């Protein structure tokens, strides 16, 4: 049970926070949160069955590009990792590595029941029962596989989370 | 008298010499290539200060676009093991002494000889630029035959390089 410790989805302390008064930084961090939530670049990374539905979500019919979500092949330029499919023990280390390669702030969506808790493969000898044993997960999308609409809803939930996080951080930094 | 052009000249000279020193001093051969590029840009700067725009651009094009890239290409293809810790010859102190002696000789001869430079009415030296069209005219009329010979040399070098690098029948 070693969950990767990192700053994860809190952004690094920006120069604004050091220089400007709290009230301003709170507002600016909200603005930045709006920017972040509007341009979530996902790591194009499919594991199993859910990857096909994830691809569907990106295609013309559902078109995630409307939300500013585009895929990016290199983890260095990605914001969101959608773990779409069964995580196998052999794949555990690469997934951790990928997560660590992504720059902060970063988010993880566990798509489908396999990534959430092992799903139909819960009792198998080689399956990690949920990707949250490896990396912190922000949004769980249930389903086997989830419909594209479900994934879209998950992404919208993530956007709300980003905004809310920024607001709360602003509030705490004002209080302190 | 310090004029803006002199300041610029010092900057260009510093670039040139710094780059040159970088080439011979650094332990990392890729850095040496980049230092060579810096030196060449410095030389291009000197050309600019001498109003030789065309030469400066040629310098940038040939050295920046061709020579340094070819060198880097060769380095990255060979991937020599001692890439980052090059060693000098054992006789480097002798080399240093010889180099210093030659520098002394050159500097002394420079100082010792007086060249009649063009001056204006006030006695200050002036730089007389060569017009671009005059250069072209001269190159293609008076020096047309050497120019063609030079292009022939380039062609021969190209063919020679291809022949040398070619491996006979796939990977040998």
């Amino acid at each position, binding site marked *: 049970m070693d969950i990767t410790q990192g700053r994860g989805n809190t952004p690094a302390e920006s120069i604004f926070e050091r220089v400007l008064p709290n009230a301003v930084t709170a507002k600016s961090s909200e603005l930045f949160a709006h920017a972040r939530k509007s341009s979530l670049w996902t790591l194009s990374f499919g594991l199993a069955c859910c990857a096909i539905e994830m691809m569907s979500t990106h295609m013309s019919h559902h078109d995630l590009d409307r939300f500013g979500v585009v895929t990016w092949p290199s983890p260095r330029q990605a914001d969101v990792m959608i773990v779409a499919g069964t995580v196998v023990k*052999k794949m555990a280390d690469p997934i951790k590595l990928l997560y660590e390669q992504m720059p902060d702030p970063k988010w993880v969506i566990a798509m489908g029941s396999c990534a959430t808790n*092992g799903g139909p493969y819960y*009792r198998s000898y*080689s399956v990690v*029962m949920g990707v949250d044993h490896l990396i912190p997960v922000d949004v769980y999308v249930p389903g086997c596989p989830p419909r594209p609409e479900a994934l879209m809803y998950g992404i919208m939930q993530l956007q709300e989370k980003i905004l809310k996080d920024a607001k709360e951080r602003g509030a705490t930094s004002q209080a302190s | 008298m310090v004029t803006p052009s002199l300041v610029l000249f010092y900057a260009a000279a510093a670039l040139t010499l710094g780059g040159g020193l970088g080439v011979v001093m650094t332990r990392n051969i890729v850095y040496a290539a980049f230092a060579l590029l810096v030196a060449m840009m410095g030389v291009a700067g000197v050309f600019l200060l001498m109003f030789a725009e065309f030469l400066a651009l040629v310098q940038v094009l040939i050295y920046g676009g061709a020579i340094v890239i070819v060198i880097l290409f060769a380095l990255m293809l060979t991937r020599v093991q001692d890439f980052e810790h090059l060693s000098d010859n054992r006789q480097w102190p002798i080399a240093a002494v010889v180099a210093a002696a030659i520098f002394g000789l050159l500097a002394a001869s420079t100082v010792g000889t007086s060249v009649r430079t063009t001056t204006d009415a006030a006695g200050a030296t002036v730089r007389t630029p060569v017009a671009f069209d005059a250069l072209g005219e001269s190159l293609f009329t008076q020096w047309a035959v050497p120019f063609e010979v030079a292009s022939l040399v380039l062609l021969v070098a190209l063919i020679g390089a291809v022949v040398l690098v070619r491996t006979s029948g796939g990977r040998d």
Partner: protein
Amino acid sequence: MEQPPRPPRQRREPEVPEAPVALDERGTALSALIRDVLKEFEVEVGAAVDEVVVTVKPEDVSAICRIAKDDPSLDFKYLRCLSVVDYIETLEVNYHLFSLDKRHKAVLKASVPTEEPHVPSVISVWRGADWFEREGHDLFGVVFDGHPNLTPLLLYEGFEGFPGRKSFPFHEYDEW
């Protein structure tokens, strides 16, 4: 009024029916042919449902496979599948063969003891046997003598035990 206690119901051992053999004419012809071609070897030709079953001794496998492939009347150019079945005391290696030309099919079976499962490799006969044998080694521990590269294929390095065997625990695993 007291009812006499009902006698405990006799638990009947369930009767396990056997699947009927239904060889078509191609199958009957083939079984005769196999008996003829492989008469030098100690083989037992039977049938299961619609397939000819040839039981051979493990040490003969390589030679018989070579003949099965090269003999023009058998013409088993195509190894469909290589599977291992665990019968607790023995491991049974099955070679499912098919002839594209003659369109007949047969199963070659070789039983090896579970403690020392050694079977000659058929990689020199069909190159396609490579991964099947590695998989058999991976999941069942069958050693295919003569295979150049019996390294783990599906499992990660350092996996202990042979998960395909019946003796391997079914679902007692850590979540990660």
